[in-house]
């Protein structure tokens, strides 16, 4: 095929892409995107993961290392079918916070730290440069394939020249469509559609070549399978470490590659598209790799020894005389390379302008935010950055001489960007991740990667002297680039992956654990980690003294006049004001910052507003105050609840006490009338009979009888007064106790005999367990007996059973003796149980037996004095009292 025709078709193809991008941009400008915003376009745009490395390199990879090339697709497949874990969150964060690039996401998450933005940018640029060089190299190689096919064998173009022209052409296209405007959301519909078209072209090309190889050259699927089995397709020696490591690496890369982040997150139109892409993108990858092995096997079979397997996709059809198919394959490879370079350059240019150029500009010209036309500064910075990125790619290609196999460079670039992974994952899943940790992790990872993988890739002696490879850095054996700490078992890429990730994660975690994040950082951390749980929460700006006009001026310089004005107008209307100048409320400042960050990145937007408003006035205290507002409310209501419960309890206690008091007061009244009655009755009879006696003139037997009545009544009075006196003595605690050893059994015997005087007419059955009573107590025997007598008498008095029975149960436990007196009457009603021990308390008059209601009160006072207690024992089917008394009363009575 004439070389000029080749160049012509390239130019025509490029023109076609220009046209596509142009038309789409026009439609986007008119807001008529329609099906161009469909999940299909989104999925196809993701295919920039498949670069020329895939298109050409996969076959070479398969020819060299068997199935290992599959790992490069398995990683992304796992990440996408597991989109619910990570991608969904990533896309949500990207959309909600107007993230413009990977560097922007990291810097924004860690407190809008521009330093992190710079570090990520550096990593991305350093890792991307060889990758771009790889694309240039593949294009040069593919041109070379056709050039060598010239009949006269002349080389119409020097490879270097091809590389230059390709780089210039790509830079032109990218600048034209990538920096047309400064969108609020860094989206490029034209370019996305163009790369979707290219995705179709490369898939069709590869499938066409594959089909030709399987059904055109080989004799169908069966034959290919036979060839695979027969082929001496090098050693697919499964190395578990390398296999696993490469799957991990490609999984990390699909998230962290700047161009993947660009199409995956930044250019995402609708989160729903991700659901479709979750299976459609793996399907695309599978289709891309379906024919890789057949092409490699057949190529090894058919092509002469020593031909470059990286170019089998081209050389196979050429060798079979299929010029048209070769042309298609060439355009496929061209598409792969160009789409990758374009998006990568845009992503890198965004990072460079937002994180390096603009901050520098603002630093050098402090008043710039209000004065300069930043739009043109940003756009020009991007244009320069695109040119610079491509120039660096070309320089790398030129210096490295395009010698290394494609796959190796690709893996090294993957490993470079994978260093961002810990900071990224930590940032969106772990609120404890801090800026210091992220910086340490990134720098550690970058250093280890550079030392073990990137610098050695230039070859021994190129950047690192030969001696370092054999003897280690500074002659330290354990610092050899391919055997850190003496680990020689791994191949170089696994080794570099292992150590860079391990040390990166270690530094990241330790740094995060031992540092304290600033307020903005904590705010951002919470907002990112909890992105699904609603709004950001607290405000970031305090109400500042800032002229809204200055803000408008600044916004115009970034967003453009029209959109800035409409933003301000709608904000003013929302505040209920006419005109274009809203009050600089915290809310409005927030809104403005988010909008600006869509154009220049979060860190820069924050810095620019800070220039006008003053420093970011939020402090840790503010943060805690606002953040804990709801917690405080919760706590307050909990306190109220607790207080209310306490009040209810107190009220209950008070009500009880009040009831008791009321009852007591009633009892007391009753008692007073009772006692006056009790005193009055004997007094009346004493007076009456003594009057009769004083009148004389009585029969002697009558005198004796009346005298006895007077005596008995006087005794009753005395007893009543004795009881009252006794009680008051006991209550004062001034009672004298006669402590001594006494037999419990003896005391109960005495009490039973004494109590027999009460209602001697009733026959009681007394149930006792004599062995249990055989013990000696150290106590005041008389007083205790008095208590027993009282209780037994009560039983005799009040037990209303027809065959009354009294059980006396004695138990001893841990130094105390309990004596229960249980009768079989109907007991004491519950409401009265608390009252019976009160003075003057008395139950119904129905079975009252002449007492004054002091007996139990006296018992209680006695027991208190004896260090024990007497209590009513409920639930015994009758009236039951329990006397508890210490086995040995040590306290001497006062």
């Amino acid at each position, binding site marked *: 095929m004439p070389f000029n025709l080749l160049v012509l078709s390239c130019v025509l193809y490029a023109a076609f892409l220009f046209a596509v991008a142009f038309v789409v941009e026009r439609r986007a400008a008119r807001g008529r995107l329609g099906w161009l915003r469909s999940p299909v376009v989104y999925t196809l745009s993701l295919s920039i993961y498949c670069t020329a490395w895939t298109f050409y390199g996969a076959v070479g990879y398969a020819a060299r290392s068997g199935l290992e090339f599959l790992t490069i697709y398995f990683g992304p497949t796992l990440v996408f079918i597991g989109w619910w874990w990570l991608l969904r969150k990533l896309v949500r964060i990207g959309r909600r916070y107007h993230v413009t690039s990977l560097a922007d996401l990291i810097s924004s998450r860690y407190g809008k730290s521009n330093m992190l933005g710079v570090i990520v940018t550096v990593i991305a640029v350093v890792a991307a440069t060889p990758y771009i060089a790889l694309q240039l190299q593949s294009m040069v190689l593919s041109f070379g394939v056709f050039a060598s096919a010239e009949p006269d064998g002349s080389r119409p173009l020097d490879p270097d020249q091809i590389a230059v022209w390709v780089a210039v052409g790509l830079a032109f296209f990218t600048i034209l469509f990538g920096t047309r405007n400064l969108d609020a959301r860094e989206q490029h519909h034209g370019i996305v559609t163009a790369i979707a078209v290219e995705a179709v072209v490369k898939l069709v090309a590869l499938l066409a070549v594959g089909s030709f190889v399987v059904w055109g050259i080989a004799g169908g699927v069966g034959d290919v399978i036979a060839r695979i089995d027969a082929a001496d397709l090098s050693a697919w020696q499964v190395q578990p470490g390398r*296999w696993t490591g490469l799957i991990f690496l490609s999984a990390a890369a699909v998230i962290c590659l700047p161009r993947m982040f660009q199409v995956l997150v930044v250019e995402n139109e609708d989160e729903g598209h991700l659901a479709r892409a979750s299976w459609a993108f793996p399907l695309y990858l599978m289709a891309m790799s379906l024919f890789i092995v057949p092409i490699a096997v057949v190529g090894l079979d058919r092509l002469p020894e020593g031909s470059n397997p990286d170019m089998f996709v081209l050389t196979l059809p050429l060798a079979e005389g299929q010029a048209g198919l070769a042309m298609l394959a060439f355009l496929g490879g061209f598409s792969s390379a160009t789409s990758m370079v374009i998006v990568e350059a845009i992503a890198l240019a965004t990072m460079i302008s937002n994180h390096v150029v603009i901050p520098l500009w603002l630093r050098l010209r402090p008043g710039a935010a209000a004065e300069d036309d930043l739009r043109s500064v940003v756009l020009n910075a991007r244009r320069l950055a695109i040119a610079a990125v491509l120039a660096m790619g070309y320089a790398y290609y030129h210096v490295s001489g395009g010698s290394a196999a494609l796959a190796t460079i690709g893996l090294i670039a993957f490993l470079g960007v994978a260093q961002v992974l810990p900071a990224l994952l930590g940032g969106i899943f772990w609120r404890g991740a801090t800026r210091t940790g992220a910086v340490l992790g990134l720098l550690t990872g970058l250093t280890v990667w550079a030392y073990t993988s990137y610098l050695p890739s230039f070859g021994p002696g190129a950047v690192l002297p030969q001696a370092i490879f054999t003897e280690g850095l500074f002659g330290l054996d354990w610092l050899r680039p391919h055997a850190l700490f003496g680990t020689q078992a791994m191949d170089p890429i696994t080794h570099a992956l292992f150590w860079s990730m391990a040390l990166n994660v270690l530094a990241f975690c330790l740094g995060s654990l031992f540092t304290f994040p600033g307020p903005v950082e904590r705010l951002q951390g919470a907002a990112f980690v909890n992105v699904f749980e609603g709004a950001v929460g607290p405000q970031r700006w305090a109400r500042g003294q800032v002229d809204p006009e200055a803000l408008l001026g600044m916004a115009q310089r970034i967003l453009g006049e029209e959109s800035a004005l409409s933003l301000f107008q709608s904000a003013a209307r929302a505040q209920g004001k006419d005109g274009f100048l809203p009050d600089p409320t915290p809310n409005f400042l927030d809104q403005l910052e988010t909008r600006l960050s869509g154009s220049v990145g979060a860190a820069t937007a924050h810095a620019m507003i800070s220039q006008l408003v003053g420093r970011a006035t939020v402090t840790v205290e503010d943060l805690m105050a606002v953040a804990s507002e709801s917690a405080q409310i919760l706590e307050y209501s909990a306190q109220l609840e607790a207080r209310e419960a306490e009040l209810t309890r107190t009220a209950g206690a008070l009500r009880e006490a009040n009831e008791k008091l009321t009852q007591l007061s009633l009892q007391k009244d009753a008692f007073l009338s009772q006692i006056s009655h009790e005193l009055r009755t004997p007094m009346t009879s004493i007076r009456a009979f003594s009057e009769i006696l004083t009148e004389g003139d009585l029969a002697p037997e009558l005198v004796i009888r009346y005298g006895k009545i007077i005596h008995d009544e006087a005794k009753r009075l005395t007893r009543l007064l004795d009881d009252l006196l006794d009680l008051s003595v006991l209550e004062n605690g001034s009672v004298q106790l006669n402590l001594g050893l006494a037999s419990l059994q003896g005391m109960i015997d005495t009490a039973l005999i004494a109590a027999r005087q009460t209602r001697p007419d009733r026959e009681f059955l007394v149930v006792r367990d004599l062995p249990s009573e055989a013990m000696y107590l150290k106590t005041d025997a008389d007083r205790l007996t008095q208590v027993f007598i009282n209780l037994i008498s009560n039983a005799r008095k009040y037990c209303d059973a027809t065959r009354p029975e009294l059980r006396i149960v004695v138990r001893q436990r841990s130094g105390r003796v309990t004596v229960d007196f249980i009768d079989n009457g109907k007991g004491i009603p519950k409401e009265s149980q608390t009252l019976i021990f009160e003075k003057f308390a008395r139950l119904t008059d129905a079975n009252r037996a002449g007492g004054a209601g002091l007996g139990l009160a006296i018992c209680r006072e006695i027991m208190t004095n004896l260090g024990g207690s007497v209590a009513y024992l409920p639930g015994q089917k009758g009236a039951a009292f329990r006397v508890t008394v210490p086995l040995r009363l040590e306290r001497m009575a006062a």
Partner: protein
Amino acid sequence: MKQPRRPLFLARAPYRRRRLRDAARLLPIVGAFLLLLPLLWAREARLSLTSADVIYFFLVWLGLIGLAAALAPGLRGGDGGDGADDEED
């Protein structure tokens, strides 16, 4: 601290939706398992590539894609609200 009150038990439809999410979370783990499984087929001196390996990998791959495609519509449907229903375990 500020735990929003969530129902302890769910109705049938939300319950299904949650299990669907669980399935979506499990899928990559299953996938990783199946893709790493061949590492254990350590035959003696495994030096050549057999067509069986190729077929195994592509079948697993196709199966994973099919499962992901089956799960995706249900997941997208439940993504509407970002309230308590949406997140998390």
